[in-house]
C-alpha cells in the first residue's frame, strides 16, 4: 500500500512537472507572429475596439499599411470596447500607453482639456492640419474640433436617417414623408388616436434620444460656442421638443411606454421595422446590412420581400434640410505616445488623406463605413458600392451636409448628452401636462453650471 501510494505521489508530481514545463514551452512557441516588428521599423501600438467581422477589416488595413512603407509597423490590438477608457488611463498611469487609440466615446474635449491626448498640430505640420480641415466633411471636422484645434480624426461617421418600410406604407396607401406634417399624417393613419384596443403597429414614434437630431432639423442649436453658452430656451429647440411631446398628447404616455417596452422583447438586435411594429424608424447606416440580410432570409423562405428606403429627416416649415445628429469613432494620439508620427501616418492612410483616398475607399466599402471626406466618396470603388447599395447613398448625402451636428465638443459633454435625453424623456412620459419652457430653462441652468465647472477643472 505504501509503495503504491509513493508511486502514485511520484506520478502526480511528475505530471504536474510535465504540465508546468509544457506550459512554459507553449508560452514561448505560441507567441503571436504579428508581434514581431521588422528591423529598422518603428512600432506603432494601436488599440481599437473593433470586434466581430470588423476586426478582420481593421487587421487588413494595418497589413496594407505595413506593406505600403518602410518606416513604421502598426500592431493592432483589439481591446474590450466597454472599458477602453479605463484601460487607457491605467496604461498612461502605468507608463505604457498605446501610440494610437480608436474609441467610439465622445472623449475629444474632456481628454483634450485634461491633456491626455495630443492636438494634431503637435504631431502634423501646420500645412497638413490646414489641408486636413478643408478635406474633411464639416460633420467630421466638428466631431474632433475643440477650442479651434483638431484633436483627432474620425475613422468614419455614424449618420441617422429615417428607415421606411415602403411595403407597409403602400398597404395603407401612403408614401415616404417629405415634411413633418407628412410624418404626422403617416402616424395618425397607421395608428389612429383614440383606438379602443392596444396598438399593434405605429407609423412612427419619436424616441427621446433623438432630440439631438430633431433639434437641428427644426433649425435649433443646443450650444453656442461663440460665447460658450447652452441654448435650450430658443424657439427652435422648444418647437422640436413640443413636436416630440405632441405624440405623447396623441397616444398618451402610458401607450408610448407600453409599446416601447414591447420593442425590448424583440429577440437579439432585431430591427423593430422588420416585425412591422413601426413603418418608420430612425437609425444609423449599419442597418443597411441588416436590411439586406433580412431581405435575403425572406427570399430564402420564399416570402414576399419587403421593400425599404432610407430618407433624410423631414423638416417643418423653416427647418433645415439634411439636418441631424452625427457621431463617430475617433482616432486619438495619447500624450506620451512613443511613435506619434507613425500613428499620424497610419491615421492618414486609414482615412485616405494626402492622396490615399483609393485605399480608404476600399476600407469603407469592406466595412460598410461612411468616409470622412467627399474625396473618398468620389473614388470609383466607392461609387460602385453606392450603385449596388442605393440605401447607403442617403447616408452619404447627409454626411456631406452642413447641418449635421454632434453633441457639443466641450468638457462635460457626456453630462450634457444625458441631461438632454432625460429632459426629452421626462417631457414625453410626464403624466401631467409638461411645462416645456420651464423644463428647458431649468435644464439650461443646470447644464451650464456643470459645463462651467468642467471647463475650470484642470
Amino acid at each position: 500500500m505504501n509503495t503504491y501510494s509513493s508511486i502514485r505521489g511520484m506520478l502526480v508530481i511528475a505530471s504536474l512537472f510535465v504540465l508546468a514545463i509544457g506550459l512554459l514551452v507553449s508560452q514561448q512557441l505560441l507567441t503571436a507572429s504579428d508581434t514581431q516588428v521588422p528591423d529598422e521599423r518603428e512600432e506603432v501600438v494601436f488599440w481599437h475596439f473593433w470586434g466581430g467581422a470588423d476586426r478582420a477589416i481593421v487587421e487588413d488595413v494595418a497589413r496594407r499599411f505595413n506593406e505600403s512603407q518602410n518606416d513604421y509597423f502598426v500592431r493592432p490590438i483589439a481591446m474590450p470596447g466597454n472599458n477602453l477608457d479605463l484601460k487607457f488611463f491605467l496604461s498612461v498611469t502605468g507608463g505604457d500607453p498605446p501610440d494610437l487609440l480608436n474609441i467610439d466615446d465622445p472623449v475629444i474635449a474632456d481628454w483634450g482639456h485634461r491633456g491626455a491626448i495630443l492636438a494634431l498640430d503637435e504631431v502634423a505640420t501646420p500645412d497638413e492640419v490646414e489641408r486636413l480641415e478643408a478635406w474633411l466633411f464639416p460633420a467630421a471636422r466638428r466631431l474632433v474640433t475643440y477650442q479651434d484645434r483638431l484633436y483627432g480624426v474620425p475613422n468614419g461617421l455614424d449618420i441617422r436617417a429615417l428607415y421606411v418600410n415602403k411595403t407597409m406604407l403602400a398597404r395603407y396607401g401612403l408614401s415616404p414623408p417629405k415634411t413633418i406634417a407628412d410624418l404626422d399624417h403617416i402616424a395618425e393613419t397607421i395608428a389612429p388616436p383614440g383606438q379602443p384596443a392596444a396598438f399593434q403597429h405605429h407609423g412612427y414614434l419619436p424616441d427621446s434620444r433623438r432630440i439631438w437630431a430633431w433639434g437641428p432639423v427644426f433649425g435649433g442649436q443646443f450650444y453656442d460656442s461663440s460665447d460658450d453658452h447652452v441654448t435650450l430656451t430658443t424657439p427652435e429647440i422648444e418647437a422640436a421638443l413640443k413636436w416630440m411631446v405632441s405624440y405623447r398628447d396623441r397616444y398618451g404616455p402610458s401607450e408610448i411606454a407600453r409599446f416601447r417596452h414591447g420593442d425590448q422583447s424583440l429577440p437579439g438586435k432585431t430591427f423593430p421595422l422588420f416585425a412591422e411594429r413601426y413603418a418608420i424608424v430612425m437609425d444609423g447606416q449599419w442597418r443597411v446590412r441588416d436590411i439586406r440580410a433580412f431581405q435575403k432570409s425572406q427570399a430564402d423562405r420564399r416570402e414576399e420581400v419587403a421593400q425599404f428606403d432610407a430618407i433624410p429627416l423631414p423638416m417643418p416649415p423653416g427647418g433645415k434640410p439634411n439636418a441631424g445628429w452625427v457621431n463617430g469613432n475617433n482616432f486619438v494620439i495619447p500624450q506620451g505616445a512613443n511613435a506619434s508620427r507613425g500613428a499620424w501616418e497610419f491615421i492618414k492612410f486609414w482615412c485616405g488623406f494626402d492622396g490615399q483616398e483609393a485605399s480608404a475607399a476600399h476600407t469603407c466599402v469592406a466595412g460598410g463605413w461612411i468616409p470622412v471626406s467627399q474625396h473618398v466618396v468620389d473614388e470609383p470603388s466607392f461609387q460602385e458600392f453606392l450603385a449596388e447599395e442605393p440605401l447607403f447613398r442617403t447616408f452619404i448625402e447627409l454626411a456631406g451636409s452642413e447641418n449635421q451636428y454632434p453633441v457639443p465638443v466641450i468638457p462635460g459633454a457626456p453630462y450634457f448628452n444625458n441631461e438632454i435625453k432625460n429632459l426629452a424623456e421626462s417631457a414625453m412620459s410626464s403624466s401631467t401636462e409638461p411645462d416645456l419652457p420651464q423644463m428647458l430653462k431649468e435644464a439650461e441652468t443646470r447644464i451650464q453650471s456643470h459645463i462651467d465647472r468642467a471647463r475650470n477643472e484642470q
Partner: protein
Amino acid sequence: MTWLQKSTIYVLLIFFAAIYSLPLLVMLSGSLKSPTEIQANPNQLIPQSWQWENYVAAIGAMPFWQYLSNTLVLCLGSVAGTLLSCSMAAYAFAKLKWWGRDKLFAVLIGTMLLPWHVTMIPRFLLLREIGLYNTLGALIVPTFLGDAFSIFLLRQFFRTIPEEISEAARIDGLSEWGIYWRIILPMSVPALATVGLFQFVAAWNDFSGPLLFLSNKDKFPLAYGLEQFVSSYADQTHLLLAAATLFTLPIAVLFFFAQKTFLKGIATTGLKD
C-alpha cells in the same frame, strides 16, 4: 418517503434544472446555427442545419491555443499561490494561539466587504512599481499573499480536525511546520480541493484583472478572447457562442469530475449544515 412524494420532488427538480440549463442550451444551440438563422430564428432551440464548422472558425478567429496556454498558466499559478498562502494563514488562525489572533481574523473577514473597485487603483500602482505590469505575474503573484474567503474556508475546516492529533504530533517531536505539512494538509484534501476549484474557476473567468494589467495580446487569456467576437456594428454571435461553449466546457467537466470532493469540502467547512 412515498412514491408520490419522491416523484413530485423529481418533477420539481427536473423543472428547475430545465429552467437553469436553458441559457446553456441557448448558447449550445446558437453555437451550431448560421448567422442568418440566429437573426431569423433566435428562439428556436434545434438548429435547421448544424454548423459544426462554427467551432473550427471560432478557434481560427483568435490565437486560441496561445490564449488557452495563458489561461492555464494563470489558473494553475493562482491555484498554487492560493492553496499555499491561504492554508498557511488558515493554519495560523485555526491551530496556533497568539495574541490578537481573533481580532486580526475579524479584520481579515472585514476586508471581504471592500469592493474590488476600491482597491483597483492602489493595486495597479503597487504592481506597476514592482515591475509586474503587463506580465502574467501581475495576476499570479497577489494570490501568494492569500485572500480572505479562502483563508476563512480553510480555517473552518482546520478547526474541525481534533486538537489531540496536533498534540500527539508535538509530543512525538514534530515542528509546527511538520504538523501543518505532514498532518493537517493531507487530512484537508476536500477543503483544499474546494478552495482550489473556486480559485481555478475565478482565474478562468477573470476578465477585470487582465483588463487592468495586460496590454500585449500574446499574454491575453481566453476570457479576453471572447470579447473579440463582439462589435458595435457586426457581432459574430454564432462564433461568440461557439467560443463561449468551448470556454465553458472545461469548467463543466472539471466540476463533473470533482463534484464529490467539492461537495464534501463545502459540507465540512461550515458553509453547509
